[in-house]
């Protein structure tokens, strides 16, 4: 969308179409809880935001992190603990979770961005595993039990989040704010620099950009937004457990993003929706979920490498990215 402002008429009509689709999507989300199970929808939104945050790094900066579960699950722990033990209101808990994930991102990013490609991925994985073992051992996480029965509380001390529609629209608000933030970052002057780094790091350096600083900033933003998703999930499900900090969770978000289409705004959401739906459907059937997701992943890699949304964009003329 960055090119829109500089490209003449055809782009204008594409932009109008995009805004129309965004508006339709928001209306659909506003109406959705009357047709679908709200918990299910909220789960999709949390994972969609998580995948979008991950995509900020992979799709727009070109960094493959294999440790994003640390931010997602870590923020869930921070939020659950502060809400349950300290008794803060849910929005404060979510903000603390987000800030905690940002700090975690700063530390992990500081070590990881010094390396490139597979080494970067391996370092993020190693650091995330260290955080996983911290969560196993630290007293406040309750180890294998996790933090259970987190009260949803009252938003701003006023709105009872125990009511399904209240929590639903709160989560929808968080989701929209998060996605808007990512969209804004991607389509900003800073976002352009990130893309140039993704495209050709040496060239960006030779233009005077201190690439490491930009990468670290992007890493922290991605971590914080992944944390926003994880903290919100803790409020929705009223617990935080080890599942969300495992390396499998880091893998899952990669799967969601690749499946939907990296480097697109909508792709990770579609991927997240698909994976979550699949998990929910198969959870009751007894068919192993991992086999299904594995098979889908292989089909995706073999048949449509750009991901679902990426392939659609490639087929439609006039829409780039």
């Amino acid at each position, binding site marked *: 969308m960055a090119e829109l402002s*500089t490209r003449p008429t055809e782009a204008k009509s594409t932009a109008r179409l995009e805004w129309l689709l965004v508006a339709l999507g928001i209306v659909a989300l506003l109406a959705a809880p009357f047709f679908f199970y709200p918990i299910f929808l909220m789960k999709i939104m949390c994972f969609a935001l998580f995948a979008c945050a991950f995509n900020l790094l992979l799709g727009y900066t070109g960094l493959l992190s294999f440790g994003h579960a640390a931010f997602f699950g870590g923020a869930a722990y921070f939020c659950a603990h502060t809400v349950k033990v300290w008794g803060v209101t849910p929005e404060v808990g979510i903000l603390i979770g987000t800030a905690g994930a940002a700090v975690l991102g700063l530390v992990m990013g500081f070590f990881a961005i010094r390396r490139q490609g597979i080494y970067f991925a391996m370092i993020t994985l190693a650091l995330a595993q260290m955080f996983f073992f911290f969560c196993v051992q630290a007293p406040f996480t309750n180890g294998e039990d996790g933090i259970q029965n987190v009260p949803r509380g009252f938003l701003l001390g006023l709105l009872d989040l125990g009511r399904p529609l209240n929590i639903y629209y709160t989560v929808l608000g968080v989701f929209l704010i998060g996605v808007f933030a990512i969209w804004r970052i991607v389509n*900003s002057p*800073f976002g352009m*620099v990130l893309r140039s780094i993704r495209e050709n790091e040496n060239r960006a350096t030779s233009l005077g950009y201190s690439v490491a600083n930009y990468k670290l900033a992007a890493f922290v933003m991605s971590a914080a937004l992944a944390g926003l998703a994880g903290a919100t999930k803790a409020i929705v499900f009223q617990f935080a457990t080890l599942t969300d900090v495992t390396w499998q969770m880091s893998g899952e978000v990669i799967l969601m993003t690749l499946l939907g289409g990296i480097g697109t705004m909508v792709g990770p959401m579609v991927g997240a929706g698909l994976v979550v739906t699949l998990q929910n459907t198969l959870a009751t059937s007894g068919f192993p979920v991992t086999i299904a997701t594995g098979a889908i992943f292989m089909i995706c890699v073999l048949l449509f490498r750009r991901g679902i949304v990426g392939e659609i964009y490639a087929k439609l003329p006039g829409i780039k990215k």
Partner: protein
Amino acid sequence: MVLSARGLRKEFAGFVAVGGVDLDVHHGKIHALIGPNGAGKTTVFNLLTKFLPPTGGRIELLGQDITRTPPAKVARMGLVRSFQISAIFPHLSVLDNVRVALQRPNGLATQFWRPAGALDVLTPRAFELLETVGLAEAAHRLAGDLSYGRKRVLEIATTLALDPKVLLLDEPMAGMGHEDVAVVAGLIRSLAADRAILMVEHNLDVVAELCDWITVLQAGKILAAGDYVTVSTDERVRVAYMGTEDE
């Protein structure tokens, strides 16, 4: 003198790639770095622009010691390079390639909260630069779709966006057709008017016509230096460099 190196050295695990090179680049002059393959020309480039840290010697840019300065900082100080393989941003439009270069000098690099439309103020200047190299009509195409020669020219336009004091061009004409060579040669000559240029080039006709000063490298050392007549009549150069060219 805007860029100077003294005793520049680079060793890779015992192998001496560059062994004590002295180099002076002057304002308004085009300086060529030539030599057979493996002579260390690109390594010298990487050392001067700090993409590789030197293992010995001293580099000064505009009177400041940059021997230990990181590459992005050196670029901000006015020493900007091009690459042997055309270094562009393939999935950005031609216009955006140039605008990205304009962003930082214009203080529009870190704003993550502003819309991309904030960059529109750079568009007129970007078009000017594209005009200079004759790419204005391709502004909205993807840079990756350009022909090889035009990619090189785009890279030069992008480099010019920084208005560098010293321009380092690594084989700017490599792989170009005849007409493109003439265009780029003219472009380089006009650029030299108010900056210093150091270029690696294999095309000796171009070097003869364009360059004021020539340094010949062989096996990481300076074999000869001087204007084209001096260098081309030097017996050692004929043996080491021209000789291999004729084969």
